């Protein structure tokens, strides 16, 4: 009788969870070649970037830049600021002549090399409140496989606008962490300690529109998995917060629904999401992307591995490294090893013996292969 129950339960399980999910490789023939505009005006010091590209196939990692276009920003006072193309398809403002100002509205104008012209809606550069707190809390998560877990730090964000005006928020982050290589070569100390960075690649938005106060409480911004070496020495996260207009928030929300959710019985039907850029020659032409303007506020958090409980073992990410430490090797030994793929690290004298060290991967002793040894200016000094 128990097997019958189990059967029933399995079928229930099938329905209630996302049951059988498998990778799927659709046979997609072709796609429309559309213009995609990615632009953001902020009140920060850095030049503002407007990126023009053409759509690429969905599993393609390259994007095709749209070069040779004339890209210009108009503010609501009528001042014109032109952008210069740096890298192909990337058009930048000149910080000397342009800085975004809170309260101003900006409009984007584009003329492509083939003559087609586009313009965007006016976007108001809104004031953005500061991020109140970023909290790092240890969490143990259960994975899909019963009995398996992952440890990590979940970073929560709290912010809010006492004047209840902001309401719609967007975030992105940059992470930086310090790492070392397993083998320190004394002659090459600069190859031992490095830093690595990454930036966010997913949509992070939040709103307080359904609350009585304009507050974002405990937004789960980012989960740092203790299964990589990020949390081994010191980890830092810089979070940027933007204030979105309702229309821009709507764009992101719809994109989030389309791109990042799915796999339940009640998935919404995908459809084209309008951006805010329009073709002046063909009103039916679809232009992808958003031209946005927003103030930026930032906050940085450092996470020390001591936040993790002692039992959590953070890997080095260099577990693949192997070393050969040879004492007084013969030339034949060394040549044999070198020809088998081992790499020479260094040699030194230890009590009248020649010690030669070899490794299997250059990144095992040279951290610049996987990071940079230039210490970021925000990195604290400390003794380790």
């Amino acid at each position, binding site marked *: 009788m128990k097997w*019958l*129950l189990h*059967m*029933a*339960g399995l*079928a*229930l*399980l*099938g*329905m*209630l*969870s*996302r*049951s*059988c*999910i*498998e*990778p*799927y*490789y*659709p046979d*997609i023939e*072709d*796609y*429309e070649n*559309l213009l*995609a505009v990615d632009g953001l005006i902020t009140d920060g010091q850095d030049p503002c970037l407007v990126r023009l590209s053409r*759509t*690429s196939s*969905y599993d393609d990692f390259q994007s095709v830049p749209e070069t040779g276009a004339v890209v210009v920003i108009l503010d609501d006072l009528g001042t014109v600021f032109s952008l210069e193309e740096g890298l192909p398809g990337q058009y930048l403002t000149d910080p000397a002549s342009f800085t975004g100002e809170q309260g101003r509205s900006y409009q984007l104008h584009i003329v492509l090399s083939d003559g087609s012209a586009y313009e965007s809606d006016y976007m108001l550069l809104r004031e953005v409140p500061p991020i109140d707190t970023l909290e790092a809390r240890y969490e143990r998560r*259960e994975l899909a496989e*019963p009995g398996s877990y992952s440890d990590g730090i979940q970073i929560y964000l709290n912010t809010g606008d006492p004047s209840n005006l902001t309401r719609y928020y967007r975030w*992105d982050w940059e992470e930086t962490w310090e790492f070392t290589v397993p083998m320190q070569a004394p002659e090459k100390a600069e190859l031992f300690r490095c830093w690595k960075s990454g930036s966010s*690649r*997913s949509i992070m938005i939040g709103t307080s529109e*359904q*609350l*009585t*106060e304009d*507050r974002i409480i405990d937004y789960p911004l980012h989960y740092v998995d203790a299964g990589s070496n990020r949390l081994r020495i010191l980890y830092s996260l810089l979070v940027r917060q933007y204030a979105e207009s*309702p*229309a821009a928030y709507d764009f992101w929300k*719809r*994109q989030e629904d*389309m*791109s*990042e959710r799915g*796999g339940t019985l*009640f*998935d*919404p*039907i*995908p*459809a*084209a999401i*309008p951006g805010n850029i329009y073709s002046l020659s063909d*009103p*039916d032409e679809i232009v*992808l*992307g958003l031209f946005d303007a927003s103030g930026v506020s930032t906050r940085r958090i450092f996470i020390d591995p001591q936040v993790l409980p002692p039992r959590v073992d953070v890997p080095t990410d260099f577990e693949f490294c192997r070393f050969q430490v040879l004492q007084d090797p013969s030339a034949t030994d060394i040549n044999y090893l070198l020809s088998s793929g081992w790499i020479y690290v260094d040699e030194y004298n230890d009590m009248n013996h020649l010690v030669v060290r070899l490794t299997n991967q250059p990144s095992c002793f040279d951290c610049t292969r996987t990071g940079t040894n230039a210490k970021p200016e925000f990195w604290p000094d400390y003794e380790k």
Partner: protein
Amino acid sequence: MFLLTIPVGSLGQGDTIEVEIKFRDAPFEDFVRSVEARYPVRFFYKSNWVSNIVITETTGQQTLGSILERALEDHGLFYHAGESGSIIITSREPVLSLSADFLSTEGELSDLANGGEVRPGETSVSEFQGGGNGQVIHINGGDGVDAYGFTLAGNVREAASGEPVIGAVVYAEDLDRGVITDVNGNYLLNLEPGIHRIIFRSLGKKEHAFTVHIHSSGILNVELEEKINSLKGVEIVAEGTRNVTRLQMGMDRIELRAISEMPSAFGEMDLLKIAQLLPGVQSVGEGASGFNVRGGSTGQNLFLLNGAPLFNTSHFFGFFSAINPDMVSDFSLYKSGIPARYGGRLSSVFDVALKTGNRKEYGLSGGVSPVTGRLLLEGPIVKERSSFIIGSRFTYSDWVLGQINAPSLRNSSAAFQDLNVRINQDLKKNGNLDISAYYSHDRFRLNSDTLYDYANGSVSFSYKQQFRDKLVTSFSAIFSQYRYRISSREEPLFAFELDNRIIHGEARSDLAWYPNKAHKVKFGVGLVYYRLDPGTLQAVGETSLVADHYVEHEKGMEPSFYISDEFRISNRILLYGGLRVSSFLYLGPRTVHLYAEGLPIEPENMTGTKFYEPNEIVSSYWGPEPRISLRYLLDSYSSLKFSYNRMMQYLHMISNTTAVSPTDYWKLSDPYLKPQSGDQFALGYYLDLLGNSLETSVELYYKRMVQIIEYKGGARLVLNDLLETDLINGSGRAYGLELLVRKKGRLNGWASYSYTRIFHTVNGSFPSERINNGEPYPANHDKPHEVSITGNYKISRRFSVSTNFTYSTGRPITYPVSRFMQRDIILLQYSFRNEYRIPDYLRWDLSATLFGNLKSHKLINGDLTLSVYNVTGRDNVYSIYFRSHEGVTKGYSMSVISQPVVSLTYNFRL
């Protein structure tokens, strides 16, 4: 002492015969025998009427007529002499005319010796032992002569329980026409005076034929016995010539006997799953609630449970229907040729009739399956005149879930219950009162803190009265409510409750008039009152920061009337003409948002609002809905049918998900959302083969729908005060072909193939109001090919096997075809709407049923069904979706059931 005289003359009026026999103090029956032996006359009479009559004295020179007059007058009896020597003894005034062929009766003639009490004007025929064919029943309601013919009306009930038999065929064989009994078991047949052979036939019952002599209109109530080896399982009722002769096309009627035999998931078959096996009815996928009938969307079907609309037809994400199968007596699905009495939805009407309860004795029955339990109690209130029935279903799935240890199920629960109660009471003088109530409740939580809770409730009250024999009137009052709630309480700061509710209140009156055998006129008026609360969000608990949000409620009234006539133009041609006129008033209080002329309806183009007072008419719509059907009999085995109907819909389902989801809700037509309307033309050819054991049909149809609802990309449907900015309207075009072959007998079932195409076109004036650049695209439920086969084979009286097989083309899907970067995030760009298809759907199910010992008087009768759903374990894809994460886009396919599901169900009956 009798003198024998050779009669002279030919057959003529019997009463002018001179009776030369002398009688003295002869009992009437002796007199009759002697006279019949000698003279060319035949007597028809009831023996208990004449048992006291004595022929005191005859002279030998009197006419038969005068003898009879003297003998009968003191007893209040009369006689009538017919053309060919028949003498009929009646208790009323003599009938003035008789049909010429009244002597062409078959079988022995006898009086109503075995009948029950027969009151003048009403004839009851109860259980006949051994045969029953050929007994002559005189119908003499005493209503006098009608130049157009008389009506034979009455009630057909099951002998054992007194339950009305719905859909029994009452067929006048000599006239080659018939009627079927309605939802109360009543029938009404127009007949010329004279003798007719009337056959009463119903699935699973012993057929009875009666020779009926119509003297005037009258009532004949019949009870039919159950055939011991009655076919169980699902069969389409279409005995004999129904497929060919009935006027209705695009309609399937299913009588549900013991549907427990069909294979299913979780061991509980239900009528909605059966409906999906019919041609033209599709669902979007496994466990998806909602149907698409001939290309219509899921919100275009009207489900009626004893006249009360049911807004959510399933429990448990579509795996169980909300209708308890034990309670169902009969169910009809109208796909085209929808009669004028129905309205309010474009694509179909599912009319479910529930049982009324056993009028003779109490009964308890039920069943147990892996996830649900069912219990049903029924019995008489006043024997033979009224009955009650209570049916309930409940789940113990929470307990089952607790036995399974899987993280994805942690913190999940699912449960449902439903309850049906019905009381049916016959009143004096052919009246009937019926009260039926229904309640169902679902509660589930899917691996998260969010709790979904919904409930349906309805009450219908109906009073029917039959006047004379030609007029039936009924009055009904119906109330139906559907509400759902989504709530989350885990985070006190964000704890909320989101409610949604629809109320339907209706009063209607229907009249059916049968002036003569050529016409069946129906007329009715109705009024529906709607109140909808589309979304109420409330904070729960003191610390919750959730702001209360109340989307303005809606009110509306839908008055309508209809008139129709089924006109028998000739024996070959039957024409149904009906007109329904429906209207809709959208009432205040209401705040209507106004938008700038010439600009798209977007929040930024809003210019102001206008407020309407309570009950002020905000907008009004109306429309005629003609309904025409024609049947042309080619011969007694085949026919051609044509129908045209127009339907209007004022209540719309708002849903942008493929399946019906808990967050779908209903909305009334308003200044921006015009009513939907649809026209359907259908043509069909029907052929019965192999002596009616094989029925075949082919139907072609074309449908055009306007003002269908589509949604802008990523439309926000929940708690949207400006919903009109996210809805766009379009038009739809559907066409298709349905082939159906049905077989009765020991191997029974049906096989169908349908080809259905449905395209939507959304071409508004602004780019944001166009989908696919305004070009037609396949709708989300466009599945061109579908094959369904269901079969049941009785291996022996105690053992039967069933199988289902279904195949359909995969539904369309929109794939992301390209991508672009926005702020280091990959966003997807989608193809033209529904340009691709998911893989095809194929499933095979098997089941076997073992019946308990069929001894009639066992205390508990039970049966056991073992069922395997999805025998091949095929991984049928339900949906395909794409996820972008950390710069990588991957496709995934999701299937709901990817392995065979075995279940065991036990049903019992006390």
